[in-house]
């Protein structure tokens, strides 16, 4: 039986071996690192973000409230703060006026949300089967029709149509798991 995130966090305070933390790390570090790398474009900084986010997890485990949101949301929030921090520090461009600075912050927020979304979609796609990914690649990214795909792959048209349907359903399911809204 899988132990829930909330249960693992609840146990962190009495976890001398760190096994609970390791489980949480293995569940989320990959996507979190990808998100950080995508946002900062620097492996060293991305590692720092992941390490700091997990450090906050155990230091502030009591602040996590599953009623308010999932562990993933909380973790991403922690990482996000750190990324905003790093970006601010890295930016050497002085703000000309206070108004501009406010605008820039909104911009940073938006671009971060987008970076996160972009990252989540890309990583959701890698979780599809090669067949499903292929039909999405051809139909969406290469803008081929069902008929053209069937011809290119040497498959019956009906197979390509139903494969497209199941590929999208599966993608939707994976995104739901990642809490990407509709």
């Amino acid at each position: 039986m899988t132990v829930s995130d909330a249960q693992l966090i609840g146990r962190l305070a009495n976890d001398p071996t760190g096994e609970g933390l390791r489980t949480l790390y293995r569940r989320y570090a990959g996507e979190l690192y990808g998100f950080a790398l995508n946002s900062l474009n620097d492996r060293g900084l991305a590692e720092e973000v992941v390490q700091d986010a997990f450090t906050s997890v155990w230091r502030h485990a009591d602040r996590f409230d599953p009623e308010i949101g999932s562990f993933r949301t909380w973790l991403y929030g922690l990482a996000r703060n750190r990324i905003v921090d790093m970006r601010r520090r890295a930016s050497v461009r002085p703000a000309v006026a206070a108004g501009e600075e406010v605008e820039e912050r909104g911009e940073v927020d938006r671009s971060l949300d987008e970076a996160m979304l972009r990252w989540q979609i890309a990583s959701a796609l890698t979780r599809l089967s090669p067949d499903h990914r292929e039909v999405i690649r051809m139909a969406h990214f290469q803008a081929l029709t069902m008929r053209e795909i069937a011809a290119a792959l040497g498959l019956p048209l009906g197979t390509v149509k139903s494969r497209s349907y199941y590929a999208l359903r599966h993608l939707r399911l994976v995104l739901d798991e990642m809490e990407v809204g509709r």
Partner: protein
Amino acid sequence: MSGCDHTRELLGGHVLGGLSDEETRLVEEHLEGCPRCGREYAELAGLPELLDLAGSADTEPEAPPQSLEEAVLDRFARERRGLAPPTRMPRRGLRVGAALAAAAAVALAALAIAGVFDSERAEAYGHVDMRGHGGGAWAELRSVRAGTEMKLRVWGLERARPGSYDVWCVAESGRWISGGSFDVDANGRAEVELTSAARAGQYHRMLVTRGRKDGRGVVLAGRVEY
């Protein structure tokens, strides 16, 4: 084939814009009059826009380095070690007032943070002699609650930026378990006490890296003698 079944079959192609004009017309007509299929369509209709964000179907996400997992767990183990309650309580005997007890608790906590309770017992369970690049290191290894405490003596290493040198315990599986980092003085020497989450018997090699935390950064290596 009922209208619904037929529509379901075309729905994927419809969302992805790959149907013929005739098929598209059929699907749209059906969706207008069928709430059930309409809901199904609504669930999928936003996907192409999201896909555009990804830019490609094959962006292989880069995985974090293995050493990061150990670094995270290592920091956890260290903090745990610092915050863990002492293993032994003071002997019963004198009745002490509340204030005194509190003071004693504070003192105990300070001792615990200093690691006294972890290191006061265990005999060394092994040692390691690491060599390479004209330098060397010798470490004595003993078990503590958090894993292994190593007394490390280093010589002959080049002076480098702070935090450049890392110690690693290499598990049988090839996994690197962090032992923390150290700096050398102007003479290329260091004498430090580090803690690793690695436990006796779990690893048989130890390494020191400089800068890079991978095979190409190794400057010293040696086999653990148990």
